[in-house]
């Protein structure tokens, strides 16, 4: 006990002491130029082992240098080497400024290093300090350049470079960084620096996949939102008048990012947000066609997701995509009912097949394939699928033969549909019948069975609305069932005597209690 309190006291003492120490040093630096050397002590703390000290020192540094920026105590222009300083014939004032400028760049370097620190708080304070420097540098440029171009691009670029680490997941820090991206100029320069960064890093890695890096890039990119109109851009970190071509920068940044090979989960992530947050902000979304068709060819869930982007391109940007339906048809396999993006997929397929101008053979092929696949689907999917199939038949009355073929009603025949055929034109779906739905009339879930029963009678004119069924989960189904009011609760009438003993025992055949 005693020892622990001792250590606490010590800890407190040390804490108090380092705070006091740093504060006094900072004050002295700011008070007079005589104590300029004290800045070394403060900067030294940036490399301390203890997080708290680092944080405190970072804040102190940002305070000091911001003050110096304000006072104009930092050397402006190309910085001479520190060794030359002694030799050169400069005034003491100038020497002081050069000295301080060197300390500033030291400090920036250390802070950038601290961006890769293991403690998040350190990272965060470093980031904030750096952004303060960026703002200060923007106001009091360190280089003598023209009026319109005084944004500290180099600093921001190095900052971005450190943010997009190749080894560490920086998503938390990037989300912190997001608030700075509200500023239009910062955003613009970040975008251009990200583009350069991707070029450089991916080129260096010979176009191989770097999941961590790409993940960081994606996190950063997905946080960037370009306002729709230039007139709305009013937030600037550094006061500026020039116009930026935000959309163009945004587009280029994404295109560069998508040009390289991506890990498959990255594809999914991008495709999920593509249609909502990327495409509308691009000046020419058709440029995404390469990426989308590549994604579409990958197969599986990625193909499903790329449908959305493709659809927008086809629908809004007049893109011609040959064999779209054929490819869509070949996409359908049992896994579509089990993927996470089931709702989105059905939503899209519903849109794709909503046209009444589609040929009957195509719709019939889709219907038959869906029906065949429904034999492996869980009830949540079936509750979407069955009304969907009914809707398709309603939209295309020529497909009614699938559920009603009165001419040859009596004689049984094989199913002429060829499941393996990839071309919907060749699969003989129109000659088949939906026996699968008939099978599903014996499904264990009452709602599914009822939905399947509908094909026994002529369908009603009104289409079923499937939009609210799209997000249905099994548990929601279960809750629906649990909440329903029941008058009576039937019971099993032959009462059981043992756990593994009933009239239709299966479990007991294979398993024993012991």
């Amino acid at each position, binding site marked *: 006990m005693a020892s622990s309190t001792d250590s606490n006291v010590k800890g407190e003492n040390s804490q108090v002491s380092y705070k006091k120490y740093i504060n006094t040093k900072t004050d002295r630096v700011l008070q007079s130029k005589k104590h300029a050397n004290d800045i070394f002590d403060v900067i030294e703390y940036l490399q301390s082992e203890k997080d708290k000290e680092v944080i405190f020192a970072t804040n102190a540094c940002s305070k000091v240098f911001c003050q110096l920026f304000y006072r104009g105590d930092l050397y402006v222009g190309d910085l001479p080497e520190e060794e030359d300083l002694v030799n050169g014939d400069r005034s003491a004032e100038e020497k002081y400024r050069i000295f301080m400028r060197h300390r500033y760049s030291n400090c920036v370097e250390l802070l950038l290093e601290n961006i890769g620190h293991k403690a998040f708080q350190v990272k965060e304070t470093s980031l904030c300090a750096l952004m303060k420097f960026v703002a200060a540098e923007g106001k009091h440029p360190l280089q003598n350049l023209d009026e319109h171009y005084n944004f500290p691009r180099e600093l921001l670029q190095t900052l971005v470079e450190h943010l997009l680490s190749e080894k560490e997941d920086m998503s938390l820090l990037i989300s912190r960084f997001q608030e700075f991206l509200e500023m239009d100029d910062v955003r613009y320069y970040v975008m251009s620096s990200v583009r350069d960064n991707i070029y450089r890093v991916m080129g260096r890695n010979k176009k191989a996949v770097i999941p961590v890096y790409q993940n960081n890039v994606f996190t950063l990119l997905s946080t960037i939102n370009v306002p729709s109109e230039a007139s709305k851009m009013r937030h600037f970190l550094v006061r500026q008048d020039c116009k930026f071509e935000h959309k163009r920068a945004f587009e280029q940044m994404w295109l560069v990012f998508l040009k390289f090979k991506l890990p498959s989960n990255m594809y999914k992530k991008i495709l999920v947000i593509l249609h909502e947050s990327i495409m509308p902000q691009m000046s020419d979304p058709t440029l995404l066609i390469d990426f989308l068709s590549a994604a579409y060819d990958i197969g599986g869930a990625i193909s499903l997701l790329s449908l959305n982007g493709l659809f927008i391109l086809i629908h809004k940007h007049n893109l011609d995509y040959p064999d779209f339906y054929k490819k869509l048809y070949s996409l359908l396999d049992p896994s579509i009912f089990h993927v996470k993006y089931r709702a989105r997929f059905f939503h899209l397929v519903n849109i794709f097949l909503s046209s009444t101008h589609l040929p009957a053979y195509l719709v019939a092929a889709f219907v038959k394939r869906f029906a065949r696949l429904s034999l492996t689907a869980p009830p949540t999917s079936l509750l979407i699928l069955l009304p969907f199939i009914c809707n398709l038949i309603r939209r295309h009355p020529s497909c009614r033969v699938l559920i009603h073929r009165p001419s040859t009603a009596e004689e049984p025949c094989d*199913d002429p549909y060829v499941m393996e055929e990839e071309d919907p034109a060749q699969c003989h779906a129109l000659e088949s019948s939906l026996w699968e739905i008939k099978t599903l009339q014996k499904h264990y879930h009452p709602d599914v069975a009822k939905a399947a029963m509908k094909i026994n009678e002529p369908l009603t004119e009104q289409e079923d609305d499937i939009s609210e069924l799209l997000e249905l989960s099994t548990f929601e189904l279960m809750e629906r069932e649990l909440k329903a009011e029941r008058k009576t609760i039937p019971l099993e009438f032959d009462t059981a005597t043992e756990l593994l003993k009933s009239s239709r025992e299966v479990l007991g055949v294979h398993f024993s209690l012991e």
Partner: protein
Amino acid sequence: INKTIIVHQLVFCAVPLPAAGGDHHPISKNPFEVKINRKKFDVLGRKSKHDVGLPGVSRSRAIQKRKDTLLKEFRLKDKNNTFIDRRFGEYDSKLTPEEKILQRFTLERQRTQDRKDMYNLNEEEELTHYGQSLAEMEKMTDVIDSDSDSEEKGLLSAELTATHFGGGGGLLRKKSAGDDEEEEHKPRSRQELIEELIIKSKQEKRERQTQKEEAQELTEKLDQEWKSIQNLLAHKTPKAERTDETDKPKLDQYDMMVRELGFEMKAQPSEKLKSAEELAREERQRLQTLEADRLKRMMGDAEEDAVQTNTHISADDMNDGFILDGDDRKTLAYKDGKWNIEGEEEEKEDEDGDEEGGEEEEEEDDEDDAEGEEDDEEGEDDDEDDADEDHCDLQSDEGSEDEDGQGAEEEQVCAEEPPAVSEEQKKAAQEAAKAELPYTFPAPESYSDLKQLLQGHGSEQQRLILDRTLKCNHPSLSAGNKAKLQKLFGFLLEYVGDLATQNPPDLRTVSALIPQICGLCQMFPEAACKAVQTLLSDSGHSMEETLEVKGRAPMPDLDMLVLLKITALLFPSSDFRHPVTTPAFLFLSQALTRCAVVSLEDVCKGLVLCCLALEYVSLSQRIFPELLNFLLGLLHLTVSDKHNMGYTVVSPFRRQGKSCDLLVLKDPNVSHSWNRKPISLQTAHRLPAQSPVERDHYRLSLIDSCLDLVKRCTWLYKDLPSYAHIFQPIRALLLKHLPDLHREILDAIPEKPSQHAPLVFKKKKPIPLKLFTPKIVLDYGKKRGNTKEEKERERLKHKYKREFKGALREIRKDTRFLAREKLSDVMSRDAERKRKVKELYGSLATQEGEWKALKRKNRK
């Protein structure tokens, strides 16, 4: 009653005599006489009777007949006499002679009354019988009659007879006997003697009268007293009566007792003891109705809906929900060529249901009784044992012998409840356990109470404790018991879950508790439903949450598996929609599609889930796609070569990746040392550390079960239209990778899909037009008469009508004829008269002429 026969009236009047029948003339074939009735249409098969007629002939014949009969009667009218008896009811055969006489008597009376005594108010005719006034006789009670008066009356005193009939001899003798007195006094005259006699007899009579009255009074008094006690003695033995009389002061108490006994329920005749055969039949019938009920539920309400939509709506229905009258008559309907008597069956079922309810109640009553007895025993027990110690304590196992004896009795009581699984060693254990356990238990108020109650006992003991708890807290014993037991069900499920999750799982106890759980469920279906629903919902919810957070959920634990199994035991899984089993289905589906299979335990759990799923659908033969997907996935785990497969596995299995060869045998030769035996459910909880060979054996068992399930599935879904397509992936897998395992499965799945008729819509009944409700005459068609009597009646009615018309016609003809005759009479009379007048005039004229001639002559 005086019989009076009065001939009411004797009247002579003229009555026409029956006329003799007319004679037949041969019909002359004079063609002028013949009248031919022209037929308008020639109808085949109709016999025409009246195509040719002889109107003149028939008319003359009729006239002739009338002349012979009617005219004669007319002529003879008022010309001869007949005797008519107009006494009341003389010719009325319906009246019995007595009635007749009575009526006549009253009529006579009325007549006299009417005439003479119309104003005589006082004098009433007194009715007599044997000379005695009937009114007096009625007044008299039969008590008097019953007395031996008549005998006395009959016994005329010799003196009396002598005096009456002795011709005065008796009197004379008396006179002679009393001569001395007479001599002393003065001789009495005969008149005096008679008077004396009369006085004497009158005196006697009066005495008798008073005596009789006294007797009468006494009997009346006795009667009253008797009446006052009579109702007390109505049900009692004469013995009681005697005591009643003897113990007057004790009467009140006794009275009460007697009344109590009087009101006590008498032993009612019990129902006839049913023979084993009858019992079996009844049981079979009950099961049949239950099974029918279950099937109906299995078909679901889809059918019901279809039936309901077809109700007729009349065109004059104003859509105000008003129905003229509930026509609950069953319409005659045919189904598959058989008379549809569904409705009646339903009614029957309902009745059966009622009966059942009754039976259940009875059973409950029985139970109550049993408990009552038990409680009594209990009470005695306590009385006896309170003295030494409350050795009801669980620890004191040195139970006294007498308790052992009671234990045996107890055993009998208990044996009635759960179907006895009579294994010898069990029984012994049970008895030992019973000796230790107390007989009453409070109903646990919380889960921890229950746990305390049950923990630390063997499974049989636990069952016994539970059994006794249920009996002690039967809802009929106290008002609060119902709620307690309802809560107990939830606790029990929780306890079972705990048993299943503890390490190692105590499934024996779970199994032992099943009868109690079933019993509770039967008692409170609603509470049981709620409890199971809550558990399912909680478990489903937590699984959903893990899925959302992690993307994959672990397989449900053994407690959920056990709960699902118990659900199948308690509730019918074959119902189309059921508040418990449908969510359970969905839970199974969720578990089979979303739960990751990463270890052999998971495989085992998955297999248990598959078994349960198959059990759930085995009766209703419903399709369970997730089950088949999962089985395919399990088989996929056995395949070492994952390339070039002709099937797709779906969630939770993957085509490739880690834990994709969980069931691949490490040593292919290990199958020689493997033999089939049931897998322990405990391994689903945690697989004990095993050697590679044992693990391989375990894998083989799992694969074997999996294949067996596939085989069962192929049997189950044989009749589905898409049978071949459903099993196509499994078939592809087996064919490619495990061709020599379970050949019969491969054989069962046809290579080519079976043929089916193309789908057509159900033949729809045309929707009937809206029609006005026809007026329905309920007894239409009965007019014609179905029975022989009715037909006869109709025939007679018709005949009567015809005859009536004919008679009317005849009468008209008769009157016409008579009128004609009368007219001719009058005419002839007039002619006669004219002729006579003429004659007179002629004679007068001749007279006149003669007189004139004479006068002329004289003048001359």
